[in-house]
Every structure is written in C-alpha cells, then in structure tokens.
C-alpha cells in the first residue's frame, strides 16, 4: 500500500471524505514510526492545522469505518484510518505539550519492534 498516491484531482479517500485529501500525502502513513517522524518534522502551527482539519470529521470517519471489515480494507478506507492514527499521535502535541516534541524528552526514542499490519 503506497502512501503517496494523491496525484491530480482524484480522491484517494472514500468519496465523502474527499475534502481531507490535502492531508493524505503527509499523514496517511502505514507505520507509526513514519507518523511520529512526520509529527517531529512539522512546526507546531502545522500540527494544529492538521488536528483542526481532522478532528471535526473524526467521529463520522470512525462510524464510516466501523461498517467495514478491518481485515479486508480497501486502500482508500485504510488511508482514512491512517489519518485517524495520525490525529491521535498529533493530539498529544497539540493538546498536551503545545509543541511537536515531548518537553524534556531529549534524544529519547522508542523503536517499533511489532505493530499490527493494518
């Protein structure tokens, strides 16, 4: 599953979430490590923008995805789910720390050794 497929005007998300298309290229990433790296690479203001764009659509997106089979997700559904994973990761930066990085966390990092395929 490629994360970088938002070329031209075609939506790579389920049709009713097409307005979230601008966020796909950066934030619809299949691994937590990529999502975390993206969080750290952004300015705080950019994280706020992403959060403010996704949060109002999140409940509807969860409901929509609840009607799908997790083990057999279409690519556009999987991208929507990944946007929600990114929203969770970004929420700590926006709501708890008010900055991309955890304060006083220095060079600390956790490698991912296992995570679900979807």
């Amino acid at each position, binding site marked *: 599953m490629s994360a970088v497929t938002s070329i031209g005007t075609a939506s790579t998300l389920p049709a009713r979430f097409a307005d979230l298309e601008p966020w796909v290229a950066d934030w619809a990433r299949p691994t*937590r490590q990529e999502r975390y790296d993206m969080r750290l690479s952004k300015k705080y203001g950019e994280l*706020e923008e992403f*959060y*403010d764009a996704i*949060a*109002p659509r*999140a*409940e509807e997106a*969860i*409901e929509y*995805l*609840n009607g*799908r089979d*997790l083990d057999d997700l279409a690519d556009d559904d999987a991208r929507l*789910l990944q946007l*929600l*994973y990114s929203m*969770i*990761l970004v*929420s*700590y930066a*926006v*709501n*708890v*720390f008010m900055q991309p990085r*955890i*304060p*006083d*966390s*220095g060079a*600390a*990092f*956790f*490698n*991912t*050794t*296992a*995570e*679900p395929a*979807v």
Partner: protein
Amino acid sequence: MTELQQRLATGKGKFTPLYEELDTGPVSYEDSISPEFFEAEREAVFRRSWLYVGRSERLPRPGTFFTRELNGLASIVVSRRKDGVVNAFHNVCAHRGNKVVWQEHPQEESKGSCREFACKYHGWRYGLDGRVTHVTNEEEFFGLDKDALRMPPVHCEEFAGFIFVNLADDPVPLRTYLGDRLLELEAYPFDKMTQHYGFSAPIRGNWKLAVDSVCEWYHPPYVHARFIDKDIAKAEKMVPPPDSYHYDLFTPHMLTSVPGPPPLPPREPGTAGAAARDQKWVYRLFRAGLFGPDDVPDIGPLPEFLNKGKIKSWGNDQFWLFPNLSVQIWARGFYITYTYWPEAVDKHTYDIDLYFVPPKNAQERLAQELIVDSTIEFAMQDVNTIEATQQGLSTRANRQFHLSDQELLIRKFHKTVRDTVAAHQARDAKES
C-alpha cells in the same frame, strides 16, 4: 483531600513497617553506579535467573524460531521442535564457532521458519533441537562423534505462554522459581490477546533505575504533570492517595496493585460533541485513555488472583518477575510487559510490549492505538528522568538517599538484587 482522594482512601497505615525484611533507613545507590557491582550482578543475577525471552505466539508452528541477543550474556536460538516443545540453544556452530542463525546483519536478531538450520560458513546443518544433522565432507575429519555435536543447549521452559531461559548449569525448575503466587497467573487468558505492539528504547541509565521509575506513583504529578493538569498544584490533587495502593512482596518477586478510573458508559453515535483542542475530548471521542478502552472486551470472569488488595476502583496489577520482567494486567482487558536488559552499568535496553484482544472494528482498533500512543508518550517522559538520575548518582556527591513509604518496592527490589549478589559471592567463597 480532594473528593477523588477521599473516595479511594482506605485509612491504612504505612506499608513498609509491615515487612520485617525491610528497614526504613537511608539507602545507597552504589548498586547502580559501580562497574564492579554490575559485573557481580551479571554473574549472580542474570546468569542464574530465569529470563523471559518472548511469548509463545512467536512460535506458532513446529519449525518456527527466533533468535535473541542477550547482551553480554549469550546469543541464543529459541525454536519449536517437531514434537511441539519449545527449546533453546546457544547460537554457536560446533565446527568453528560461527553464529549459525542470522539474516543480513550478524548483530541483529532474526526470526523465521525452517526444517533445519544451516551454518553459512561451511554448511553444517542442525535440527530444530540444535543437534548436528549434517557435517560437510564428514570423512575429512578425525574421529568426530557426530551424535554428540550440537549448538550447546540452554535451559528453556514455558509458563502461561511466556518463554523463559536460564543460563545456569542446573537451575531450579521454572515453576519452583516462580512460586505459588505467580503460578496463579496461569488462569489469565493471555492467549486471547494476540494483537501485539512492541517498542524498544536504548537508555543511558542503570536498568534498576528504570524499574524504580515504574515502581512508584510519587513522580506522576511532576514528570507527567501535563497529562494530569497543567497546574502542578492541581495535578498533585488528582492522584490517588498513597493508602489506596496495594503491595505484596514474595521474594524475589513482588506485586503492586494500582487504582484507576472506571470506563465511560456506552455512547450513541454522533454524540461525542464538537471537536475541541482538549485531550479529554480526544479520549472521549476514541473511547480510551492510558488506563485502557472504555469498551472492555469480554474475556470471561476476572480470575481471583487479580486485585487481591480489593482496591475500590482497580486499575491494574503489576507482577514483578525477578529480575527484569514486569507483567502488568489491566482491569480493562489487556496486558503490557516491560523488560529491562542491562548492557553496562549505565546502559540498558527497555522493551515495552502491549497485547490486546484483536479489535472487531475500527472503533476498537483506534482505542487500542490511543492506549499504545499514550503509554509510549508517558514512557518517553520517564526515559530522560532515568538518564538524569544516572548522571546525578554517578557524581557520588550524595551517597545516601531517602525512600518514602510509597517507594517500598524500590527499597525491596534493590535489596533483593544486593542479597542475591551477596549470597552468590558467599557460595563462591565457600567453594574455593
């Protein structure tokens, strides 16, 4: 006391004086900064204790295997034999000592599935039990006793799906080592929780300091203040009172039980409320928090070995399996293991693994994602504190430190390590 604190308070007195083996005096942290002690600890503790190396779900079929690099101790292969039994052996060829099982990078751990292991150097082959099955050009050797050739065995036993190894020559059986209280864990449905997230962090601090940091709830209003309340004075009031916890020491292992918030009631779709820059709203939206999902999976009745202290609003039980494993069983139907692998007196690897019942839908999947992310955000805050403590201790500017009542597990844990080292050294002295 705040309302929350009043609700959870039990009126119990101090815990430490209840344990005869514990005093209440100042402590030394020499055991975390002395290179000599580190070497002695490796010999007495790590070379002689049962060490957890992985869940048995990692070996679903005969022929599946994984390797472990136990830094400074051993390099081992753990595999499931044809008869279904899990066994372990040193990852060392009987021919000229080459590491047999590895892929791409000899230093890295690997896993897979096979019928036989083949040494990449001269093609000797080994069965799933580590015994030599094939010697290349065997006739060129001199009196080889092929049946006796093998990758040296390592004691390996399984308990409740946890695979342990022991590097000692003649260890006590695993179940004896664990003892009655820990054997009760077998009643827990670990096997239902196969949705696995794993993380690993290098930490420049002694492994025991990392254990210390999850053995007390004195630090959260400071280290994790922002999660509780931006105002530290308020954060201090949000934490449960010290008498609401429960402790049990069954040397060398130990347990602590912790209170936690109850799950939220079910919610109709479309009622999460307007989006807000507020983490509490995020928790409500995804129906989860640090203490678990609000929609708790059905894993059957709670086994009786949990929450023996009858905490009113129970959050989790943390079982410390000496020396370096903690199994944390949460009230809301998931568990986490924490493992600490020392590399030097001031360096270790910290592994956190979280296990959930596989999610039925996106809502459950997202709730698990939030629990995982919260756990790691909290852990990240702890890591630098551990490194800062190592830095402070290693100056030896202070040599005596002070543990409060709610730090009794720390007092006990360091004492158990020191006692184990002393007992081993006394045995050694007697023998020589």
